[in-house]
């Protein structure tokens, strides 16, 4: 990967990667540091990473760093997503944006924080990054069956936690 390719790839994926880290960690400062760390590691390994697999490489590295950070937190006895909050953009306040959206979003933000780190990683990669089951397994370095189990569990837990909000809607 050349210098220009590196710059181009960083500019292309920076916001998505940062969002992924924010949702994984629930802390913007830590997410910023982890995202920067992932980009620095990409720079150090640019000789081994091609442009085609750059996004997957960055997501894999960021996932590892986020899971390490969450493990460190749990060792320190802190709750994984202690200060996690959902800051909805202005467009979310519009009632016509989406089906059940206004009621569902705050509950969804809390429910995401209740998931285990592995379940959260799988559901974010599937729903927010639009990855296939196989891609998720590659990125998280887990078996396909393990990814499926985590995904179904995450969906069930989110559905149960958001059920009240959906009934109100």
């Amino acid at each position, binding site marked *: *990967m*050349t*210098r220009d390719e*590196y*710059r181009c790839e*960083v500019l292309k994926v*920076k*916001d*998505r*990667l*940062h*969002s992924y880290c*924010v*949702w994984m960690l629930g802390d*913007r400062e830590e*997410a*910023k540091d982890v*995202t*920067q760390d992932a*980009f*620095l590691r990409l*720079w150090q390994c*640019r*000789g*081994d990473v091609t442009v085609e697999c750059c996004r997957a490489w960055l997501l894999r590295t960021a996932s590892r760093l986020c899971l390490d950070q969450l493990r460190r937190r749990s060792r320190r006895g802190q709750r994984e997503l202690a200060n996690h909050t*959902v*800051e*909805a*953009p202005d467009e*979310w306040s519009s009632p016509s*944006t*989406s*089906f*059940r*959206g206004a009621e*569902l*979003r705050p509950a*969804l933000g809390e429910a995401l924080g209740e998931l285990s780190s592995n379940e959260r990683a799988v*559901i*974010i990669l*599937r*729903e*927010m990054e*639009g990855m296939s*089951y196989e891609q998720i397994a590659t990125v998280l370095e887990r078996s396909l069956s393990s990814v*499926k189990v985590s*995904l*179904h*569990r995450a*969906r*069930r837990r*989110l*559905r149960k936690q*958001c*059920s009240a909000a*959906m009934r109100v809607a």
Partner: protein
Amino acid sequence: MMNDSPNVGPGNHLGDAVLGYSVDDRLSGAESTKIEEHMLVCEECRERREAVRAIGVELRRLPVEAFPEETLRELFAKTVDAVPPSRLPSRSPWPIKTVARAAAIFLAFSVSWISWNQYGVARRSEVSRSAIQVRYIVGTTARALHRVEQAAVADVLIRGLAEPLHRISSQWLERIPLTKGSSGI
């Protein structure tokens, strides 16, 4: 795709896995038809699948967190802007680590060899110098001893032989008759 085949019937409900596969379009044609037939008669499964879809839609609408511009500038300052472009090969054609190791081994071997040789020369010159010194000392001692010996021998000879010779010569002189001239005196 669907390993946990749905036990679809009016009194049975679909599992979470099957609902997920249905939402993700990972069912075969026959399986999908079977599921849709069940959905027509089971309101609960229909609602559960709708809930899973709605959650997916809302998750995709979660806000994108912009990576801070200042941090991005810091990142580029540490990476692409820190090194001149001409010095940024994506991958060196030389196996740098292997060459470095080989050079280190060669250097160490050369230094060892030179040091050993220098030490050998020094050792040899020291040995030869010592040998010369020993030979000189031995030679000098031998010469000195030789002189002492010569002197001693001469002394012994002089002291030992002089008296007997004198005695013999005296006896011989007494036995020799005097000449006429001398006897008449």
